[in-house]
Each structure stands twice: as C-alpha cells, then as structure tokens.
C-alpha cells in the first residue's frame, strides 16, 4: 500500500470518527445538569445496602463482575511481566553495590515510608466509607515500601520484600474474590451478589455486607501485584545484566 493511499485511508477514518463524535456530542445532556438517572439509582441501591461510599458499592456490589474482570486484567498483566522479565540464559545476575544516599533524602524517605504505608492501609480499610478503596490504597501501600529503595538501597528493599510471598498473596487475592462470588452462589443467590452477610449499621467499618471483604481482596491483590511488577522492573534495571558474549560462539550470519 503506497504512502498516499494510506494517508487517504487515515483521512477517511479520522473524518468518520470526527463526524460520529460530533453527532454524539450534540445528543449529550448539558454539562453539570441536575438530571442523573443512573446516579440516582446507584445512590438508592448503595443506601439500601448500607454502603456509604457509592463508588465502592458500584465496584464491589452492583458491578462486582466488572471489577473481577479488571482485577483479572491486572493479574494477567503481572503474570506476563513475570514471564517476560525473568532472567534468561544469556543474562547474569550482578549484585548491586551499596549506594550513598544524601542525608536529607534518607531522612525524608524514612519519615515518609511509615506515614505512606499507613495512609495506604487506611484507604483500603475505609473503602466502603470514604473515597478510595482496595485499588487506590493497594497502590499507595505498595509504592510506600519502595521508599526504602530511595532511603537506603536495593538490598535493603529486597530484604523486606520476599517476592515469592507477594506472588502468592497476589494469587490469593484474585482467588478470594472468585471464592466470595461463588460463596454467594452457594448461599442460593447470584454470582458475586451481596447476600451473604448482614448489611450492618450505615457508615461503620463493618457495613455494606460483602463490600469490605471484596475490597480487602482487591487491596491485597493490587498491593502484591504492584510489588511484584516493580520487583521485576527493578531486577532488570539494577541486577540483571547481559553476559558478555563468548567469542567462541559467533552468531553473525555474515
């Protein structure tokens, strides 16, 4: 296909997209209007299940199946990263040298680490009450651990981060979500339906039925997934290096 023809195909596609988007925009309700049919129904459903954070109710109750899909995407992505970024035969493992860290950086990172970790865990624990939840808090808690890499060096981070256990926790979080969904089925309801537990008192930690449990499962899965993901990237950036090619095996085709 010549360059000219390709440009024509591109122009045709862009024109079609622009026309459709333009037509769709004219049908949209006005920005900031007070008619929110889906929002009203979601709020009503969330309140009937005593879940204070409506977004968590949508994520872990009304549309929990969608969340299972998203969680599986993250799980699959991390699995792919683990497979792709493993140490191959022509690479060698280099022990990272201890690095010198300037004292202000070290002090800041060591103070920020516990605070960030607690904030992350708080956000996970209060997912059913206030903005945030397993996903947001999980990422925060996982990145908090990596402040140790900034404060000290890679070997210190490696010591508090046994990757194998985080891989197990990642799989356990994914499995817990499915098991909780199946448990609802065994209880005589639909998959992932919020019917197992009493809804509890509105706006307390133990409210919302299975929402806090599913939220915690997501928190565990996401935090472990991010730790494993960053571990693979850090290994590649810090530890794994190409072996110098042995001269006895020429690979050139010339």
């Amino acid at each position, binding site marked *: 296909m010549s360059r000219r023809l390709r440009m024509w195909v591109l122009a045709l596609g862009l024109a079609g997209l622009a026309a459709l988007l333009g037509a769709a925009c004219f049908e949209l309700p006005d920005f*900031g209007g007070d008619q929110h049919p889906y929002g009203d129904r979601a709020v009503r459903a969330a309140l009937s299940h005593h879940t204070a954070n409506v*977004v968590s109710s949508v994520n872990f109750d009304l549309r929990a199946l969608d969340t299972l899909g998203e969680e599986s995407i993250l799980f699959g992505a991390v699995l792919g990263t683990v497979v792709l970024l493993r140490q191959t035969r022509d690479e060698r493992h280099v022990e990272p040298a201890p690095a010198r860290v300037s004292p202000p950086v070290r002090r800041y990172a060591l103070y920020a680490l516990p605070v960030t970790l607690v904030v992350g865990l708080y*956000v996970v624990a209060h997912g059913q009450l206030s903005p945030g939840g397993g996903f*947001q808090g999980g990422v925060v808690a996982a*990145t908090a651990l990596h402040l140790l890499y900034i404060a000290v060096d890679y070997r210190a981070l490696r010591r508090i981060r046994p990757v194998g256990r985080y891989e197990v926790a990642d799989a356990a979080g994914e499995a817990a979500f499915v098991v909780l969904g199946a448990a609802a089925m065994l209880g005589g309801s639909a998959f992932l339906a919020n019917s197992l537990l009493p809804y509890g008192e509105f706006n307390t930690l133990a409210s919302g039925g299975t929402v806090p449990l599913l939220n915690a499962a997501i928190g565990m899965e996401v935090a472990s997934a991010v730790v494993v*993901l960053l571990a693979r*990237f*850090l290994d590649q*950036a810090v530890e794994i*290096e190409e072996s110098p090619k042995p001269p006895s095996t020429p690979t050139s085709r010339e």
Partner: protein
Amino acid sequence: MDDVLIVITLLLVAASATAAVAVRDPVRQALVLSLLGLTLAALFTVLQAPDVALSQLAVGTALTPLLLTLAVRKVHRRPHTRDDGRGGETTGSTESAGAIESAAAKERGE
C-alpha cells in the same frame, strides 16, 4: 467559582499533556507525565470524583513514571557493555527507539 476552577484545571491538563508530547527525552517525559497525573488528579477532584482522582494520583503520578524511568535505565545500561560508542546520550525518543532497534538487531545477529 466552580466553573473557573474547572476551566483552570482543564487548561493545566491541556498544557501538561502538550508538554508530555513535546518533550522528547524519555526521562524528562516521565517527569512531565507525573505532572500530568497531578493536574488530572486535581481536575477529577474539582469534578467531584475523588475516587478516580486517588487512582490517578497513585498510578499516573507515582507508578507509571517509576516504571518508565526503570525501563529507560535498563535500556541505557545496555550500551556500555558493548563498545559501540553510544554513551547513552540520546537526544530524541525516535532516535533512541532507533538505537534500541539496531541494538536488538545486533542481538539477533543481523
């Protein structure tokens, strides 16, 4: 007042997004991407979507730039194991992409 805030944050998002495209060095791009995440988080907060803002802050501002810089570090670490005279001074992302490609081609023995 609300509208003014929305317009200001939208302009900030547009400016930082344009900067993220215009900057060509991948490491600087990661930093600008972090800034874009911050402005997007502000925009979502102004639009009363704090859950999305938190996700954006955690993933867009912290995680993605971190993964990018780690990837760049890995790519830059490669050349100095070979003596092909590329000391890692890459001026453009297209150029460095070309460098990676040629390095990969060398790898395959072409």
